[in-house]
C-alpha cells in the first residue's frame, strides 16, 4: 500500500508532463484509416525535438497516434508490443483487432487514472480487420469513444469543425490526405506547439504505411499580417 496520495512515494507518480507531442488527427476513408501528426516534441514552450515519431503500428491490424508525454507513449508501446507478442504466441489464427487494442488501452489508462498515476497521453487508435474499419480515441482520464473522425488536443477545437463539414464516407486516399493536410495547416498556423514537419499514416486491410516526413506550404501574405504594428501605438 505504498501508493497513497500524499505519501513520499509522490516522486513515483506522474504529476506534470515534460516532453510533449501536440495534436493527432484521424479519419476513416474508403479503404481504411488515415492518421496525421507532426513530429514535434516540446519541452514546455521550447520546440525542442523535431523528429519524434508519434505514430506507430500495433500488430497487423492497428495503428496508434499519441499526443502528450512522449516517455509515457514509449511505455504504452512497450505494453502494446508485449500484448501483441503474447497474442502471436498462441499461434492459433486469432489476432487482436483495433477494437480489442482500443479497449485494452482504455482499461490501462483508466486504471492508472484511478491510482492517481496517469499515463499523460491522448491516444488515437485506428485499424481495419476483416473489412471493418475502426477509429477510436482514449485519453489520460480514461474517456474513450469511436467516431468517423477523431483528434486530440487542439485538433479537437481546430480540426474537428473542418471535418464535420467536409468529411464524408468514401473519401479516396487523395481526398483524405488533402483533408488532413487542411487540418494540419490550420493547426500549424494556430497551435504554438506545432512544427512544420509531419507524417501521414495509412492503414488498410493490406497493412500499415507511415509516410516519410514532409512539410506543408504556408502563406503569410495575408493583409492582416502586413504592417502588423499599424494602429498599435497608443492602443493598449
Amino acid at each position, binding site marked *: 500500500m505504498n501508493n497513497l496520495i500524499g505519501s513520499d512515494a509522490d516522486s513515483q507518480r506522474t504529476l506534470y508532463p515534460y516532453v510533449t507531442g501536440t495534436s493527432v488527427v484521424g479519419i476513416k476513408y474508403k479503404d481504411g484509416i488515415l492518421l496525421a501528426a507532426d513530429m514535434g516534441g516540446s519541452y514546455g514552450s521550447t520546440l525542442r525535438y523535431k523528429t519524434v515519431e508519434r505514430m506507430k503500428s500495433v500488430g497487423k491490424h492497428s495503428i496508434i497516434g499519441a499526443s502528450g508525454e512522449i516517455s509515457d507513449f514509449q511505455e504504452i508501446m512497450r505494453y502494446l508490443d508485449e500484448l501483441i507478442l503474447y497474442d502471436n504466441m498462441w499461434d492459433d489464427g486469432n489476432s*487482436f483487432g483495433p477494437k*480489442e487494442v482500443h479497449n485494452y488501452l482504455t482499461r490501462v489508462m483508466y486504471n492508472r487514472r484511478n491510482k492517481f498515476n496517469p499515463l499523460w497521453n491522448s491516444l488515437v487508435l485506428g485499424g481495419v480487420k476483416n473489412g471493418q474499419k475502426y477509429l477510436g480515441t482514449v485519453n489520460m482520464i480514461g474517456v474513450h469513444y469511436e467516431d468517423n473522425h477523431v483528434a486530440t488536443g487542439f485538433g479537437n477545437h481546430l480540426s474537428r469543425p473542418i471535418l464535420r463539414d467536409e468529411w464524408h464516407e468514401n473519401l479516396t486516399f487523395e481526398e483524405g490526405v488533402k483533408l488532413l493536410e487542411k487540418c494540419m495547416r490550420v493547426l500549424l498556423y494556430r497551435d504554438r506547439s506545432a512544427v512544420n514537419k509531419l507524417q501521414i499514416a495509412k492503414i488498410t486491410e493490406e497493412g500499415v504505411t507511415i509516410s516519410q516526413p514532409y512539410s506543408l506550404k504556408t502563406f503569410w501574405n495575408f493583409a492582416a499580417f502586413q504592417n502588423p504594428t499599424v494602429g498599435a501605438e497608443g492602443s493598449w
Partner: protein
Amino acid sequence: MFRNQYDTDVTTWSPAGRLFQVEYAMEAVKQGSAAIGLRSKTHVVLACVNKASSELSSHQKKIFKVDDHIGVAIAGLTADGRVLSRYMRNECINYSYTYESPLPVGRLVCTQRSWKRPYGVGLLIGGLDESGAHLYYNCPSGNYFEYQAFAIGSRSQAAKTYLERKFETFVDSSRENLIKDALFALRETLQGEKLTSSNCTIAVLGIGEAFSTLDQETVQRLINEFEVVGEDPPAEAAAAPDQSDGAEPGPAAAAADDDDQETPAADQGAAPMDI
C-alpha cells in the same frame, strides 16, 4: 483396471509411464450419462441424456452456457463440471471486459489446470470464433481435441458409430438437420428406451444465434417429426470432411497387465492420454 501401488497419488508415475489417477478420472467420464456434440461450418449442437435418479427427483443440468458464443456439455462428476463451467464463465467475462470482444474458444480450452486431483468430468465445448464453429473435447488428463462430432459418457459408443457414418455430411448441414442428427445419435445411446423431450436436452449455437437450450415443446416436435416419417436420418450431402476423426482414443488397457508391481513391462494398449 485393478488397484496397484502406483495409483494412490496423481503425482506418482507408474513404471510404465502412466498416471493411474488420471486414467481413473477418465473412467468417471465413461460412467456419466451420455453427452453428444456435432458441428457444421456455422452451428454447433450439444445434446445430452437426462437421467433422473428417481421418478420423484428432477434431472441434473448437464449443459451450460459459458458465454453467448460458447456452451459446454458435461459427462461424469457433474459437481466438477459445474466448477469448471464457473471458471470458464469467469474467463470469458474477464476477456470480454478487457477487450470488448468474445474469447476465442481455442484459447479457452487450453487454459485448464488440474489442482489436487484431476477433475472427473469430460467437457464437450462448442463455440464460435472468427474462423467459424468449433467443437472441442476436454478430458480429465488436460488434453483437448477438436472434433466434427463426438460422444462421451455411458453407451456413447453406439452414438459414435452413428456419428462416424454421418459426420462427413455435417460440415454443410443445415441447423435443423444438425439437430435431427443429434437426436438420432442420442437415441442410439438409449438402447431401445423411447426418446422423449423429458429424457434429453438439446442446445444450439451458431453464427448470428446466441447459445440457447431448446424448450421441451420444440424438442418433442422434432422427435415426433422423425418418428412419424420413419427411421431414416436426414438426407446426406456429399461433403469432404475437413476435421479430425470422430473416434475417441482407444480405451485404456482394461484387461491388460495392470499389475505393475513386479514387472515394469509395458501395458498392452497405449495409455489414453498418449494419443
